[in-house]
């Protein structure tokens, strides 16, 4: 299992110290969760507008253009394991 970083949009969370994370599944529907800063990478703090960022994931399986990854916390819609486009997963 390898730790990777998955592209996402990051906004303020419901509590200070947590962030709202929204990303795209392989089928182009959205997944979302609340995550801690240590599991995220972004340049500017979100301030009312989502910023581009990445979330730490564990890569479980990769086939062609699809990757199965484990999120640090379960997504609200889909649980902890999601299939995403391989191009959105990076070192």
């Amino acid at each position, binding site marked *: *299992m390898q730790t990777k970083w998955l592209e996402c949009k990051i*906004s*303020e*969370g*419901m*509590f*200070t*110290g*947590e962030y*709202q*994370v*929204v990303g795209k*599944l*392989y*089928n182009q*529907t*959205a*997944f*979302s*969760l*609340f995550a*801690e800063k240590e599991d995220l990478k972004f340049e500017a703090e979100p301030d009312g507008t989502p910023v581009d960022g990445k979330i730490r994931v*564990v890569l*479980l*399986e*990769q*086939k062609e253009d*699809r*990757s*199965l990854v*484990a999120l640090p*916390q379960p997504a*609200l*819609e*889909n*649980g902890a*394991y*999601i*299939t995403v486009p391989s191009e959105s997963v990076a070192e």
Partner: protein
Amino acid sequence: MILSNTEIHAALDAGRLIIHPQPTPRTPTIGNPNCPFDAHTVDLRLDHEICIPTSGLFTIDLTQPGSFSEHLAKHSEKRILTSDQPYRLDPKKFILAQTMERVELPLQGEPPYLAARIEGKSSRARCGLLIHFTAPTVHPGFKGKLTLEMINLGPAAFLLSPGMYIAQLIIEQVTGQIAPNPSQFQDQSSPTGKIK
């Protein structure tokens, strides 16, 4: 297996359980009788910030695609509590809150690993206060403050002050190896399923 207070202390010392700030004192004394450790639980405190869901003309439908977190964040209001300005939770009202302590159940090292369950405290329950009503489980590998789903089912308003003991944590040992296992998604075709 549920850990006793001495086993909880040992888990804290070994780094198998991390609670920050670490609850003190570990044993009551004459000078400090308020010990957060009971026979097999550790009390946690209410944090300064709460989140109040706002009502509106919308329906939550998890079957529809979209970002559920955006909906939750958009339809809620943050409030900072102080000892001078506690929050009055009226009967039948629902809020989200968090524990002041950050809890971590590391998956590093050799098993057995730990899991936990957050529960209310009987003194608060007698007033009708639920501090969680559906999601008590803290999974192995979790790290963060624990979110409380609080509702007042009692007949009177309940004042919530930051730092008050609000919940208790029960620590359990998980037997067996834990591993994310892609094979469990065999033959599934949903976005969360195994890649075929």
